[in-house]
């Protein structure tokens, strides 16, 4: 235990890393036999690294596998293949009982603060639960819960109340307090503010930033809101249909997104200046996300890609046949998975 704590974490070595994570959910036939007739490719070969005291944002539209990736990194669901490295150990190979002590270090904050709190427990019980599960409640747990309630900015006098008696922002603070109870090193934030009003989002985001400074936490911040991501993240990875299409530091990515999908996302960020807003280039994507049970060959984005339509037939053939890998040998500063990546200043 002590050895683990004493190991200095240099900025270079990641706290937690996922390597080539793949998760396929089987699609089964109806009837008694329930043969496997296909698979939903939720996550297809995602690699991520989060350093100490660092925020990595995972961005993408609904159903692209962001939340699944976060749960894979926590070992809450078992990956089809790939590994998760935490303190030199592959979490995916650990048994349930071996995993238990590690659960203390990696905690999850959920998107929907109502659904993720047990309606029959008081706030006090909800926040005390992780401590009880790990047998830490007897040693000053009561005091600890009280201070956690204060840390996340709730009134400690409300500890006897039930989740339904709170507003959305307050509930999310309860969820954060619960995640902090075990003094984790890594916090997986699964769209922690997308269910909240904009006015309340700011409060929760600032709370998360303060906590990171005080406690030295690492965040995986799953979101589809690029404005929030720009504010909070150090690094950003953009996902589309189970794959990372572009990654880089927040600066690199926002100054010159090179992947057409990232460009489309960026062009949708609202700008506060109406004159700029009117003059800007807007990239509108048409059609739906292809079914993850049968993803397109080659580049998965080609079916909706605005760049693909402007390419010659030969160039298109490359997109259809060859899967683009993340590469940095293009004009921009990011790593983009596109054969014809070219940075574009958009925001």
């Amino acid at each position, binding site marked *: 235990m002590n050895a683990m704590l004493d190991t200095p974490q240099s900025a270079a070595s990641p706290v937690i890393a996922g390597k080539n994570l793949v998760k396929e959910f089987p699609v089964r036939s109806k009837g008694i036999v329930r043969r496997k007739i296909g698979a939903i490719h939720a996550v297809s070969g995602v690699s991520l690294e989060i350093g100490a005291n660092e925020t990595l944002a995972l961005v993408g539209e609904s159903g692209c596998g962001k939340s699944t990736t976060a749960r894979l990194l926590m070992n809450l669901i078992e990956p089809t293949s790939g590994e998760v490295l935490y303190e030199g150990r592959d979490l995916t190979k650990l048994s349930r009982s071996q995993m238990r002590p590690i659960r203390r270090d990696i*905690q999850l904050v959920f998107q929907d603060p109502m*659904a993720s709190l047990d*309606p*029959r427990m008081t706030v006090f019980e909800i926040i005390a639960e992780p401590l009880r599960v790990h047998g830490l409640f007897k040693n000053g747990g009561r005091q600890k819960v009280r201070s956690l309630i204060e840390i996340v900015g709730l009134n400690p006098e409300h500890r006897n109340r039930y989740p*339904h008696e709170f507003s959305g922002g307050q509930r999310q603070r309860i969820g954060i307090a619960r995640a902090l109870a075990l003094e984790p090193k890594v916090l997986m934030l699964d769209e922690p503010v997308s269910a909240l009003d904009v006015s309340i989002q700011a409060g929760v985001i600032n709370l998360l930033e303060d906590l990171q400074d005080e406690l030295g936490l690492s965040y995986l911040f799953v979101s589809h809101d690029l404005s929030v991501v720009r504010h909070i993240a150090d690094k950003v990875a953009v996902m589309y249909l189970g794959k990372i299409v572009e990654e880089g530091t927040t600066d690199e990515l926002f100054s010159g997104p090179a992947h057409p999908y990232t460009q489309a996302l960026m062009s949708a960020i609202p700008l506060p200046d109406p004159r700029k807003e009117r003059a800007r280039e807007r990239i509108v994507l048409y059609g739906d996300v292809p079914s993850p049970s049968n993803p397109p060959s080659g580049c998965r984005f080609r079916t909706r890609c605005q760049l693909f339509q402007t390419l010659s037939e030969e160039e298109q053939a490359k997109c259809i046949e060859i899967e683009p890998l993340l590469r940095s040998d293009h004009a921009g500063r990011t790593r983009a998975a596109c054969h014809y990546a070219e940075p574009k200043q958009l925001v």
Partner: protein
Amino acid sequence: MSDTTVNRFENEAITTTERSQWALITRRFFRHRMAVVSLVLFVLIVLFAFVGPWVWTWDHRLHPDQLPSTSTGPSLAHPFGTDASGRDMLGAMMKATQQSLLVALVVAVGSTFLGAVVGAVAGYFRGAVDSILMRVVDVLFVIPFLVIAAAIAGSIDGGSKWYHMAFILAAFGWLSTARAVRAEVLSLREKEFIEAARAVGGSSGHIVFKHLIPNTMSVIIVSATLQIAFAILSETTLSFLGLGIQPPDTSLGLLIQDAGSAAAFNDEWYLFYIPGVMVILIALTINFVGDGLRDAMDPRQTMVRR
């Protein structure tokens, strides 16, 4: 933060003390008037059944040599009257209530506990565990209850006692509870707070007992109150068929049975109505107590909040 909010916090600080979950539930229960009245009444019935026989001079047995050979109506010496075979009905009622309560409570507790655990486990683990447990339930459901009860009761030497009855009834009573709880758990297990408990490192046992069962409490309490009515009625049925509790022991069902349905309309009305009213009283009080408990355990019930 403005001055007024600070003041408000401070004011609340005086009034709110930390309470455990159980303290909160008890407090809410005691705000439910009908439930409290019923609880008091039920406790009185329990005292009547268990302390009464120690106080009252007559027991439930026949005393043809000391009592008249015809039934006599209520009097000071025999407040509930006597019957034709020389039995003091107050003494008989005490014993009968005691036996019926024992059967009803053991069945309610046993079958509800078993049903809740089996249902929650089946619903939570799904897959093979679920299939096996639910097939067991299905098989038990299609076996005619009376045939099995008769077979078991008939093979007990010296007639069945209350615990035999309780065992037989509980062995069948848990089936419906298990089904109801499983259905509820199937939808609950997909909720995020279950995943949250797993993310925190909670074991399956922790999740089943701390999250799933508390959240199915309303279903469980409703089926427990139904179990009690079921137990008293089935015990009566079995006694009527001569398979239940046997004389000289007695139960409420047996007393009603002895009185015969004709007694309801003639001079021996007290032989019929007194045990009948007792059955109703037990069922009613338990229902109200169950209602109160269910509301007290559901924090979203705002009815009795201040």
